[in-house]
């Protein structure tokens, strides 16, 4: 959680210094949800996220330096600078997005869960991998959400749908956009258990997550978990955030999940304060190092422009000289005319 917070704060700094650009959506305040769920997953389990995906990537194990370099648009980033803030992918860590369209990740996550079940039942491989899909309150009014609740329940797929209800979709309040604002209730009409949990308390989230993930792994099907959470910053770094009531923000700030966990630990004397301070220091150093790494990394070379459009580069077709265009040296150097 601490890594997530420090990282996102650093992103804001870097953005205002011009090192990061485009659309950047920060996760401050919601760390309990990411940590609560993802830290229970194995390496083989899948996470699908939205554009607010930096911390999901970090929780899933993508190195901070790779994420930072990606945000700076450098070739050492996890997607070699080709994805950016909204499109974090790491096949190695089974983070398959990073999607800018809200609701887009939900069917893809359902497909990943489908592939897990297919491998087990048709290909007869031993596979009990679970998929966790993260999305927001605004997405829960989108058609694809309901389509996938239906199909996940119908086919009993090993997936957990996690709603990060932070009450706001840019400037649209959840209550102005939704006829019945209680999202967890939308699971049972599809035959999916719906669970409501306080998303600012990482221990509570973890309890619910344990049960939901175990359920999916057993083969009992999907769960819909609504986490009440809040984002401390605006929708993105370009959002002036004028519509949210300062009292509301203050209320949730006082319930900061990191501060809450820290208090809990100290109250119950689980870990000495000096150790916590050491962790904080480590994290700061890690994030600093990530920035240095990203700063000193090179930008993608020109030859990277035309790479990876297709897995099979012959997809660029045959040029006017009768040869496959990917064989033209200008192509691999990025100087061909496309």
């Amino acid at each position, binding site marked *: 959680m601490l890594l997530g917070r420090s990282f996102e704060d650093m992103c804001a700094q870097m953005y205002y210094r011009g090192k990061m650009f485009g659309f950047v959506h920060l996760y401050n305040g919601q760390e309990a949800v990411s940590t609560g769920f993802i830290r229970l997953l194995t390496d083989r389990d*899948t996470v*699908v996220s939205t554009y607010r995906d930096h911390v999901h990537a970090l929780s899933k194990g993508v190195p901070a330096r790779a994420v930072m370099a990606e945000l700076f648009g450098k070739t050492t980033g996890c*997607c*070699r*600078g*080709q*994805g950016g803030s909204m*499109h974090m*992918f*790491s*096949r*190695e860590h089974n983070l*398959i*997005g*990073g*999607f*800018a*369209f809200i609701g*887009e990740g*939900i*069917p*893809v*996550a*359902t*497909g*990943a*869960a*489908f*592939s*897990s079940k*297919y*491998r087990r*039942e*048709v*290909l007869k491989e031993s596979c009990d991998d679970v998929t966790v899909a993260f999305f927001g309150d605004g997405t829960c009014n989108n*058609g*694809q959400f309901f*389509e*996938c609740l*239906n*199909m996940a329940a*119908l086919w009993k797929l090993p997936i957990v749908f996690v709603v990060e209800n932070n009450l706001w979709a840019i400037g649209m309040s959840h209550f102005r956009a939704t006829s019945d604002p209680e999202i967890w209730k939308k699971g049972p009409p599809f035959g999916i258990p719906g669970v409501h949990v306080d998303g600012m308390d990482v221990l509570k989230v973890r309890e619910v997550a344990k049960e939901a993930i175990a359920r999916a792994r057993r083969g009992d099907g999907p769960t819909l978990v609504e986490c009440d959470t809040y984002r401390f910053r605006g929708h993105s770094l370009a959002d002036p955030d004028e519509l949210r009531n300062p009292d509301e923000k203050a209320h949730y700030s006082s319930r900061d999940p990191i501060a809450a966990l820290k208090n809990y630990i100290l109250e119950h004397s689980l870990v000495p304060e000096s150790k916590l301070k050491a962790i904080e220091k480590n994290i700061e150093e890690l994030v600093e190092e990530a920035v240095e790494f990203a700063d000193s990394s090179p930008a993608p070379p020109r030859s990277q422009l035309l*790479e*990876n*459009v*297709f*897995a*099979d580069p*012959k*997809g*660029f*077709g*045959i*040029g*006017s*000289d*009768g040869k*496959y*265009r990917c064989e033209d040296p200008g192509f691999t150097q990025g100087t061909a005319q496309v």
Partner: protein
Amino acid sequence: MSAVVRQRLGGKTRVFSHLRQALQRAGFTASVAGKNNSTAAKELTVRDALNSALDEEMAADPKVFIMGEEVGEYQGAYKVSRGLLEKYGPDRVRDTPITEAGFAGIGVGAAYYGLRPVVEFMTFNFSMQAIDHIINSAAKSNYMSAGQLSVPIVFRGPNGAAAGVAAQHSQCYSAWYASCPGLKVLTPYSSEDARGLLKAAIRDPDPVVFLENELLYGESFPVSADVLDSNFCLPIGKAKIEREGKHVTITSFSKMVGYALQAAEILSRDGISAEIINLRSIRPLDRDAIISSVKKTNRLVTVEEGFPQHGVGAEICAVVVEECFEYLDAPVERIAGADVPMPYAANLEKLALPQVEDIVRAAKRACYRSVPLAAAA
């Protein structure tokens, strides 16, 4: 059965293209005409060609599965997947609820993990409900993830006008999908095309949009023994010269190939020898074939069923102007569907779609024979 020869993607097809051309010149026209040579090739409908391709690819690779509306118990909305449910079971031939966006996305997620879905859209008009997944999560993913996630998915279904199905069921999507980087867009015409291209599409590691045509499903074409071989694949990105000619090049795809061939017959009686190119692949476009042909004939007519603005013909015209302008002896003629939503009335529908006479007229204009201009919409 003669020696089984493997046809690999992008591999050596020269021998067979000569064979096929020889068969063409020997009088095998593309449609059922009563010219059946008893020692010749078997007749195969496009529907059976597609069905057999699906069957064989599913048998060869257990990761291939079919998903879509009515593909299973209904045997396929157009019976293309007939018999496959009985053979492979409901896990591999999945009937879906009416959720194009949902199941297209599920296909993409499954493809990320190495499965090979064949997603059927009942018609490509319905693909508009899923176009976010085709473009954003299928086509762009390999690039956005810098090669980590390839998407070996096939989106297939009938495309373009059928008969009397009106505006919302008749649009041709070739131009839309072909403009998107990261996609391959195929448009088979004959049974050989259907079989070879579908097999290539399923084996391809990238997302393929496979645009069939409902009116072609029942048409029969002669196919040679090699086409029936289970390893028969056609290379993606290579067009086929259906008929060689000297005076004018006519490019076409899907159903329009049949019309162009008929037009070529009519033109030949007037002394105009038309070279008919069956594009087969809209993205990537076989620029080499088109340009070589234009360099030979110096005149070009592009034919397509879809809307004229920003269509396939527009792209071909631009390519030819860029690459071999000096070889053109006449302006490029574009034939496309009318710039109107498809009307229902049968006579209006006929006016809204290219007909053989339109192709003949355009070819003659390109050859500077004086003919009255048709109404240009």
